[in-house]
């Protein structure tokens, strides 16, 4: 493993598999225990440095670190570091001076974790940077797919929605490809980046055409602000063409699963009947997120195995 987890490309197939296997071992080790805690990172300090609101990701990382017995500091610095006065670099050096061993960073600027990694000696974990990547989300998605389908190699994954602005999509494209899955992106052309042709994926505009051959459908959240910028004519039209409703779900193979990184816009990209169906892994994803993040922190900080 590299010292940092900045993007999915930092993980080769062996590393990625190691993270998933470690997450599985951690989950088994904790299963049935009354005290869901391992002493592995006792005495180590993990800082959650969040420049954007993200309750679920922050809680997931916080829980992961605490279950490994690390000391956790939550540093919320919402807003641009520059506009708020202190620079990212000064904040980073301050945290390091306080003895942080790892910084988990969420930032609205793509590449902020990469900059941070050049300024600090400890490990940096990207918890979502702008429209770039969110590698632990991809890891928990991969873990969930493997858990439900028993494999990743050759699994056909369809990612649907706002790929252009999605760090979840980018991380999944690279990680799932590394792990041997076949990824197809489906979106209106306005929500696909120019340059998507260089990615190791298939690209389509027609959701109905790909559903019968999908093992996994991953629905991306559509941000409200996209609706006012002519990325598509209306929420209703988007939902008609790219939303996953019960009728479309019926076109999926029997054992196919439906994923969503949350938070969902029910009725927009995903219908309630789909989100709440047996195919949905949305709740599993949240739980698996903690195990996968425990594995990442454990492997990066090199805690002695129990």
């Amino acid at each position: 493993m590299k010292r940092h987890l900045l993007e999915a490309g930092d993980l080769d197939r062996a590393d990625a598999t190691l993270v998933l296997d470690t997450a599985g071992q951690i989950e088994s080790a904790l299963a049935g225990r009354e005290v869901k805690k391992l002493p592995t990172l006792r005495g180590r300090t993990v800082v959650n440095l969040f420049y954007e609101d993200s309750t679920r990701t922050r809680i997931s990382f916080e829980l992961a670190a605490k279950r490994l017995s690390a000391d956790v500091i939550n540093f919320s610095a919402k807003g641009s570091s520059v506009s708020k006065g202190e620079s990212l670099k000064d904040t980073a050096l301050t945290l390091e001076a306080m003895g942080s061993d790892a910084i988990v960073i969420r930032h609205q600027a793509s590449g902020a974790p990469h900059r941070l990694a050049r300024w600090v000696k400890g490990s940096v974990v990207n918890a979502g940077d702008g429209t770039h990547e969110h590698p632990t989300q991809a890891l928990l998605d991969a873990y969930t797919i493997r858990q439900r389908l028993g494999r990743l190699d050759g699994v056909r994954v369809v990612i649907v929605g706002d790929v252009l602005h999605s760090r979840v999509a980018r991380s999944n494209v690279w990680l799932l490809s590394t792990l041997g899955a076949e990824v197809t992106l489906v979106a209106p052309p306005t929500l696909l980046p120019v340059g998507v042709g260089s990615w190791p994926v298939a690209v389509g505009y027609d959701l109905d055409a790909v559903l019968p051959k999908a093992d996994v459908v991953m629905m991306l959240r559509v941000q409200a602000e996209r609706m006012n910028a002519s990325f598509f004519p209306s929420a209703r039209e988007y939902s008609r063409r790219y939303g996953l409703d019960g009728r479309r779900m019926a076109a999926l193979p029997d054992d196919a699963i439906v994923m969503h990184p949350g938070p969902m816009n029910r009725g927009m990209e995903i219908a309630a009947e789909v989100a709440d169906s047996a195919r949905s892994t949305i709740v599993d994803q949240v739980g698996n997120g903690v195990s996968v993040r425990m594995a990442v922190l454990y492997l990066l900080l090199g805690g002695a195995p129990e």
Partner: protein
Amino acid sequence: MSTLITGARPYGEDAVDLLLVDGVITAIGTDLSADGAQVVDAAGLVALPGLVDLHTHLREPGREDAETVETGSRAAALGGFTAVHAMANTDPVADTAGVVEQVWRLGQEAGLVDVVPVGAVTVGLRGERLAELGAMADSAARVRVFSDDGHCVADPALMRRALEYVKALDGVVAQHAEEPRLTVGAQMNEGDRSARLGLAGWPAAAEEAVIARDVLLAGHVGARLHVCHVSTAGSVEILRWAKSRGVQVTAEVTPHHLLLTDECAETYDPVFKVNPPLRTDADVQALRAGLADGTIDAVATDHAPHAVEDKESEWASARPGMLGLEQALSIVVQTMVEPGLLDWRGVADRMSVRPAAIGRLETHGRPLAVGEPANLLLLDPTHRATVDPAALASRSRNSPYAGRELPGRVVATFLRGVATVMDGKAQK
């Protein structure tokens, strides 16, 4: 006051001596007599006319922490320049006779290069109404180049009026070609790399669309148009077409667009953030070819100093721009001379003769000949050195060439016969 330069090779040709007396080249020949003149041994050095930059940000008034007219002038002299055009996006904006005269006077006081102010096209660079272009032209600063650089004159009707109006001033509008609606939030060239890096894309079409519009307008009203920092292959094509139709259009390319590509963005180090952004290798090749065949008239630095805190940040919040004055000639040697795309006369043409003509400077861009102003530089083309930003004369450190080994060293620069640089050191 007289100086005898011995053994220099004008335009890289046969070695001769040049005698500079009272700011004029008074004799060129072999075995000239020193006759009391200070002798400069230039054996092996290439002599070129002093370079002229059409596009320099000196930051004064307003951001003297990033650069001043004096520090920028020193960087320019060290780069072999004898004249630089100071862009108008200062604070206050150079949109009145008062501000352009202030900048001009600061340049005279520094005395290292001729600082030629550029006037803003519109009041406050806001793109709403014309600044008093005539007053700036008639001022002591004698403004001939007008630009809202940093901002595009996006309103087509306003651009048309500006082009027409400056005809009466023998002026030129230097357009920063960027359709603003296509570049909202843009961070880097739009393409494969922006898609992967998750940085909002700056499409080539946003530059090309404005250039296409403006050459049509310039042709229609019979005015001079200059295009700043051309960065794409498509722009070169449009310029080639416009010139073939007889449109009075000129264009510049920056050293960094001749050398660097958007690959540099992969580090997310904002020292490589610039506007227009670094493009692809295909664009770089097209720009070099365009400069070689004259479609692009000039190399202009777009020297853009920034304080450390404006660059030592995450990419999106960093200011765009990079230093260029001190390495410009070296980059041209590496990208154009060494590959055989330009000879030394070509370098003199693109870095001195044509930019001086575009800016209507009468005493710069002149040939190395008897009776001409003694504005020249001496270059050691064989010297190679690694760029150390800490050693630069600029007040800022945002050089994208840090750690790169580049060819060519400016040994001396003469402004009206007076050495502003000697032995690679600024003389004041």
